[in-house]
Structures are given as C-alpha cells and as structure tokens.
C-alpha cells in the first residue's frame, strides 16, 4: 500500500532531497500532530488504513480519560452502570472513527482540544439517549443526533470566562438541583432530561425517541407526557420556593 507519508514529505521537502529509502523509513509522529490533523488522517482510512489506525490510536489516547469520565457521570445521572458507561465511551469513539467530521472553523473553543471535546459530548449524549434500542452502537438519524443539531447552531457568542464560580458555589448549585430531583423517580428524570436536551436546541423530541422512551420505561405516551409535566412543574416550583427563601 502506498504510504501517506510520501505525500506529506513531498509537501515539506523538494522531491530530490529524499530518496525512496528515506521516505520508507520516515515515520509520522502522530503524538506531535494537532488533533485536527489526527482527524484528517482518520478520514483517509479507506485509502490509508495503517496511518488512520495510528492517528485514531493517538486520538483515543488523547481524549479517552475525559470522555470515559464524562460518560460515567452522564450514565450515573440516568442510573446506568459503569459497564454501560464504558460501552457508551467506546460507541462515542466508534462514531468518531466512522464520522471524523469536526470542523475547526465551528469550534466552540480557541483551544482546539477543548473544541474537539465540546464536539464529542453531544455524541456521548446521543448514544445515551438511544442506548438500548439495539445491541450495538446507536446510529442516530439527523433529527435525533445532537451533534448535527448543535452544529446547525454555529458558534456560541461571547464567553465571560471571569464569571466562573468557585467550587463551593458550584457544589451548592449541584446540591440544589439534586434536591429538586430527589422527589422524582428515574423515569421522571430520564423523560425530563431527554425532552430538555432536545428542547434546549429548540427542537421537538423526535418521534423515534419518544417511541424508545415508551418501550424502555414501559409507559404509554400519555403517561410520558404526564411524567414530563409533573417533573417540569415540580422542578420549577421547587426552585421558585427555594429562591424566595434564599
């Protein structure tokens, strides 16, 4: 198989400078490549499988700690086990292998690695929302895929980094949310956050997702609507009352 390094080196050095032996011995140092270039190599997997594999290995090494951790937290909120969280992590990277479509110009961070992570979190969440429909990684449609929904929104506006709160305040905010959720069953929570995730982006919950919720939770659509309404009103009421007391 022709190696991609020849093309890379041709762009870097005049052709007469390197002979064939040098080219074959030259190795691409994937560890030093920016993540966007790793994704480019991955996108060439049909023509250059070996290089794509090496790039993907480095990509996984670079981001696995963060993605597995996030997956564990999200799965914990949905009451899924760590086993599921690890499967979801694998499915997330599998989507990257299949569709390395990150666009640097749409990055939500000037730091490209953070931008890549912000691109990957919707992939995790889509896999969680669709978990259980089949015994394989989920293949979301466009209307179900948070990555595409997010992508259509383009860049986020101004970020006020100085406003980041202290950890103590963050812990207290988390405590307030957890208190508001404490009276809700996991069925309420799953319905509430699934709806909320789509509605946040101004979308309706796609019909296949509501169908999946009915099946997973053993509820009718009417019950799902009721659960959502109860959860939504309870959370709003709870927080309103707390805010008045604070």
């Amino acid at each position, binding site marked *: 198989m022709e190696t991609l390094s020849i093309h890379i080196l041709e762009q870097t050095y005049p052709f007469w400078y390197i002979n064939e032996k040098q080219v074959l011995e030259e190795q691409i140092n994937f560890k030093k490549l920016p993540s966007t270039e790793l994704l480019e190599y991955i996108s060439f997997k049909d023509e250059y499988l070996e290089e794509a*594999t090496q790039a993907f*290995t480095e990509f*996984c090494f670079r981001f*696995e700690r963060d993605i*597995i*951790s*996030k*997956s*564990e937290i*999200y799965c*914990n909120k949905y009451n*899924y*086990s760590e086993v599921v*969280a*690890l*499967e979801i*992590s*694998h499915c997330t*990277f599998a989507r990257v292998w299949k569709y390395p479509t990150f666009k640097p110009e749409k990055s*939500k961070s000037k730091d490209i690695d*953070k931008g890549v992570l*912000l691109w990957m*979190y919707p992939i*995790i*969440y889509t896999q969680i929302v669709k*978990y259980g429909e089949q015994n394989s990684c989920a293949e979301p449609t466009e209307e179900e895929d948070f990555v595409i929904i*997010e992508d259509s929104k383009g860049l986020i506006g101004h970020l*006020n980094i100085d*406003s*980041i709160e202290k*950890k103590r*305040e*963050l*812990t207290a*905010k988390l*405590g*307030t949310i*957890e*208190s508001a959720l*404490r*009276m*809700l069953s*996991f*069925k309420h929570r799953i319905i509430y956050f699934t709806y*909320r*995730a789509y509605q*946040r982006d101004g979308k309706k919950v796609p019909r296949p997702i509501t169908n999946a919720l009915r099946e997973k*939770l053993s509820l009718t659509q009417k019950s799902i609507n009721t659960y959502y*309404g*109860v959860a939504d*009103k*309870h959370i*709003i*009421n*709870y*927080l*309103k*009352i*707390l*805010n008045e007391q604070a």
Partner: protein
Amino acid sequence: MSKPKKIQKLALDHLDDWFASTGFLYPVNEIQLERFDKLYEDYDFKLKDERIDVNSIISGSIKRSKIVFPWKEEVFEEENFETLRMAARKGQGEVPQHIIDKMLKKHNNKSLDD
C-alpha cells in the same frame, strides 16, 4: 471542603446552563465545561483505570453487555408522587405551607449532610 450555603439560588432563566454545568445535560460552551470539570475534579471515578479498546472499534467488534434498564423495578413512593401531582396541578401558589416547610427542612438537612 467548607460547607456550602444552605440554599443556593438557581435562576430559572439559566436552568439549562446549570443542568449542562452539573452533568445532567452536556456542556455546549467553555464556561459550562470549566464548571463541570471543576465540580467533578475530585470525583471517585470507577472507570479511572479503563482504556478504550481501539482494535475493537476498528474491527467493529465492540463488546456489548446484556441491556438492562435499572429503573424497571424502581419503587416509587406514592406519597411523593401525590405531593408532586398536587403541586403540578395547582401551581406553586397553592402548595400548602406545611409541604413547603417539609421541603425546606429536607433540603437544609441534606445540604448539611453533604
């Protein structure tokens, strides 16, 4: 870590922002991500030693366990549900004071436990 304030206000207009910052929804910007990472920096991750099996992804042979929905057998307290239904039906203005007191007591006790 020092004790958090008993009650921390949460602006309802920014609820999604806070859900995304605390792990209930995914972060969509740097602020939410930084809050998230700060909040969970000391979290006891069960999967901290796990790695991604690259070969299984490339070969399309990711191991899947039997699908289990843990909430199927969930026992939900009827008393809670009735309270919620009542609050949802009547709105905040109609929630009796004794329920508000009970709720605040639970919230404050839990905050101190944390």
